[in-house]
């Protein structure tokens, strides 16, 4: 099982390595989003510092949605899901493998966006451990939800518009929890950052369980 998961994830990362879409296109777009937020808030440094946690996660959501879109386009364009169905790889392994591939790409995106908010929004990091835990939990939750909805929208003609509509309501708690936990880590809010961070791990676990159970149903079609 682990072997299959790694096989799928490595395949996706190799595709990414050759095309360099994440680092070459999505990450710069994420940075642009950060700049545009500064326009929206009239470059008010205090507002940007207070909102940095939330703006980070919104930028991750925008960029991550594009990554998910792409991760499924490379499969459906060549009818790879039919090939998967005929191979011995089981649906739960495929689900976890795709999630791991997305996870690593979103981490790459965050490695660009993180310094972005520190430099552009003048953020101080008070609690590194909380920051890392929240980023890990939020990215895990994002990846598993994203793969679940990604496969659902994949293969439909309207996938580019459908995916965000399906994804954002389900990710709303993750955005909320990620923003609050980051604000605590940045020292602009004294509230239960760790509780918010744990909530994201719970969300990730719930969706991982659902995904492993239902991915087979979704694959039978695309």
């Amino acid at each position, binding site marked *: 099982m682990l072997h299959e998961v790694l096989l799928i994830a490595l395949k996706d990362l190799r595709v990414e390595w050759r095309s360099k879409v994440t680092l070459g296109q999505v990450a710069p777009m994420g940075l642009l989003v950060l700049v545009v937020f500064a326009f929206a808030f009239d470059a008010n440094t205090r507002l940007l510092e207070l909102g940095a946690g939330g703006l980070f996660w919104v930028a991750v959501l925008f960029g991550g949605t594009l990554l998910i879109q792409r991760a499924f386009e490379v499969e459906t364009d060549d009818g790879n899901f039919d090939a998967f169905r005929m191979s011995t790889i089981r649906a739960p392994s495929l689900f976890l493998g795709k999630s791991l591939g997305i996870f690593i790409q979103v981490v790459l995106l965050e490695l660009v966006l993180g310094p972005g908010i520190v430099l552009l929004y003048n953020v101080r990091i008070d609690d590194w451990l909380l920051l890392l835990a929240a980023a890990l939990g939020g990215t895990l939750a994002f990846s598993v939800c994203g793969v*679940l909805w990604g496969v*659902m929208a994949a293969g*439909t*003609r*309207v996938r580019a518009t*459908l995916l965000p*509509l*399906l994804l*954002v*309501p*389900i990710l*709303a*708690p993750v955005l*909320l*929890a990620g923003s*609050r936990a980051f604000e605590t880590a940045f020292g602009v809010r004294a*509230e*239960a950052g760790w509780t918010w961070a744990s*909530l994201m791990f*719970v*969300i990730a676990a*719930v*969706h991982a369980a*659902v995904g492993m159970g*239902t991915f087979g*149903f*979704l694959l*039978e*079609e695309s």
Partner: protein
Amino acid sequence: MSPARGNKYMTASPATRVLGVVAVAAALLMALLGLIVSPADVVQGQAVRMLYLHVPSIWIAYGAFVLTAVSSALFLIRSRRREDSGRHHDRLAGAAAEVGVVFAGITLVTGMLWGRVTWGTYWQWDARLTTTVLLFVTYLGYLALRRLPADPMIRGRRSAVMALISIINVPIVHFSVDWWRTLHQKASLSVGRRPEITGEMYWTLLYSTLAVTIVASWLIVHRYRVIRLEELRDEEALNALIASRLREDE
């Protein structure tokens, strides 16, 4: 829940015609009780009359979404056991979700108008309002997914999985939003707490819930039948297409 025997293309049957008459009568009596007979509230004044629509609507919305989830689970179980079986569960899921979205929308409209009078503003980031708007958008997405052209079984399975994930998410969304608003700005939330409802208002509310449930049942039954008609039409179109192809081949 199939239409009357003998005219299979109709959405009406004697039983649902009776249900329709009862629904209209119940709705008219509800308007009479809610708008004229029941008194204005001491604290909320006339605005309390909005709750006779608001509270039953959210109950119907939640009830319909639970019905969607249960039907979807049954559909997945049935269709796994035997290909092409359990499609009535899928239809029921679709019909209930659509009616649920209609009533979630009504909940939002009446809630905002109620808030305008009671809070002085249309929108508060109240936990329940926020949860409801997210629920509304989630099921709009569900309906969008259902509308995509696909093989009925494939579409059924896909939307069934989405219905299950969506219902699992309801407590997560509610919990996190509730937590967000109670950890923060306690005062504004207490404005939104509804005062106790007693006496005539209580009975009016209870009756309104019954009346709205009857209306919603009528809507779900008929929507179910229309979905069945849509499927029949799609099958017929497909068969016609196959027949014309076969003729071309000859």
